[in-house]
């Protein structure tokens, strides 16, 4: 894929468009390349979208009460009809579905969760994690079009291009025909998502199965209180035991963090978990098994029973 001059970008959230457009521009191979934005949603976001840096905005109007997926067909038709060289989508569950539908229509696969995306001589090169975080895989798109789900971390790292505000966006309103997704929306409720964003706090304490009962997690909370830290956990704690909400699960299918300080308590340090925390500046480990892999990944560690150590450590930090 040596020629990349027609790129489409898409997200569920209007705020992602500037970064998506910036990323798209870095992939263009010609000056006259076009970056197109597609939006399914309300017109309230129009102004923000028009200053995001796209040359063209295709706006598929949808009222909040209607099922997003009923408009996917229209979006796919619009994009495919324009013979894109690449389509970039901000990662979310909806976009994963839409990306697959788009890829099926374009007879290609999706490059998922791209943590890096660059245009090279031989074509578009992407990087993403495989084997539960054990490895990074680099892949090259040998034939257009490329469909790429862009990871949150890549979008966050992108500064908005100066050209963004300078670009004149031509908007067009598209009216979707009657949806035919085979899906009827019966009701929708906001999720009672815990208002915690582990990625935004400097100190995170992660708890694992070394805790015997849910009540015992308060020992970790006491330490967190001393350090103004947030508590995160391994997958079994969130999913198997259900002791904590999904928002607190750190790891390959959960939060990916880069805190100043990461304290691992009663967890063994499996890669699937640690991949979400091993970019921390300092890692502290507390485990009763001296042989636990966590100690090999730690800056400082202590071998001991967490029930005995946590209260005393909190005391020492108070």
């Amino acid at each position, binding site marked *: 894929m040596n020629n990349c001059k027609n790129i489409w970008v898409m997200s569920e959230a209007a705020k992602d468009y500037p970064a998506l457009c910036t990323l798209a521009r870095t992939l263009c191979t010609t000056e006259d390349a076009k970056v197109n934005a597609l939006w399914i949603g309300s017109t309230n976001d129009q102004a923000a979208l028009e200053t995001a840096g796209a040359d063209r905005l295709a706006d598929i109007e949808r009222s909040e009460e209607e*099922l997003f997926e009923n408009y996917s067909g229209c979006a796919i038709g619009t994009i495919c009809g324009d013979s894109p060289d690449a389509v970039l989508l901000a990662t979310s569950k909806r976009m994963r579905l839409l990306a697959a539908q788009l890829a*099926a229509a374009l007879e290609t696969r999706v490059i998922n969760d791209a943590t890096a995306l660059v245009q090279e001589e031989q074509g578009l090169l992407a990087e993403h994690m*495989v084997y539960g975080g054990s490895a990074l895989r*680099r892949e090259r798109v040998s034939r257009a079009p490329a469909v790429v789900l862009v990871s949150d971390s890549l979008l966050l790292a992108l500064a908005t291009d100066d050209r963004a505000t300078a670009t004149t966006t031509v908007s067009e309103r598209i009216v979707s025909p009657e949806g035919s997704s085979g899906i009827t929306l019966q009701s929708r409720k906001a*999720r009672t998502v815990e208002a915690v964003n582990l990625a935004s706090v400097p100190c995170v304490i992660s708890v694992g199965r070394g805790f015997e009962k849910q009540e015992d997690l308060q020992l970790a909370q006491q330490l967190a209180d001393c350090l103004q830290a947030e508590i995160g956990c391994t997958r079994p704690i969130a999913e198997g035991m259900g002791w904590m909400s999904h928002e607190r699960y750190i790891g390959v299918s959960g939060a990916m963090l880069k805190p100043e300080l990461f304290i691992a308590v009663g967890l063994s340090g499996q890669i699937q978990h640690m991949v979400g925390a091993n970019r921390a500046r300092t890692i502290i480990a507390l485990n009763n098994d001296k042989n636990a892999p966590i100690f090999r990944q730690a800056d400082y560690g202590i071998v001991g029973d967490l029930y005995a150590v946590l209260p005393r450590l909190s005391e020492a930090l108070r």
Partner: protein
Amino acid sequence: MKIVACYKIVPDAQDIAVRFDGSLDLERSEWIIGEYDLVAIEAATRLAEVSAGSAVLLSAGGKELTDSKLIKSALSRGAQELYCVVDQAVANADAFQIASVLAQALKKLEYDLVICGEGSSDLYAQQVGPLLGSLAGVTTINAVSKIDIQGNAVIVERTLEREVEVLQLALPAVISVTTDINLPRIPQLKDILAAGKKPVTIWSVSDVGALPPSNVQTVSTRAPSSIERQQVIYEDASEENIKKLALDIKAAR
């Protein structure tokens, strides 16, 4: 209701070793059924039980798929029958190629509902379910966290980042389920013994269709470079060591 659950066999991530040059050594990894796919199999089995229907399994992959222990393991979880497309070309196929082969195989089966796991435990692209539904041209939805059968209608809950949707699906449909939909059963000996007697149908790719080309090439797969760590480990939790650790924590903040 006729239900199909799809699964993929993957190398056990626990035993993946990193060589000195950063490449991966999969040789010590045994093949196992993807952990997310166990959830799909469980969902299909439970649904077949409540709807007095049937649950069959479908997979595509390399020759490892026909390992009789893996087949017994798959069939010990409640499904009645297994269909698999076995071809070395499929062993290294990408999500689009696998979904294409599965979609072709699906044409040979009667089904109302196909259930996939959220993603494979090795690549975790979370694409095969959505691709399969799209390629099969049927109702397709992902992130399903609950399934209900009300008469002839299938009602699902779909858990997204910020909201939960309750959706009615026109059948046939392909859905991907999240891990919190169930806790997969642990096969008991009688299930394991029964699994050996269940029918298994093996197709080659040419029996069902053809493997489409991939337009993405893998350049490299390497362990990420790791950060050098201090490696100061206090081997016992004496008062003095706890005080030292507290100072280390304070210094790091």
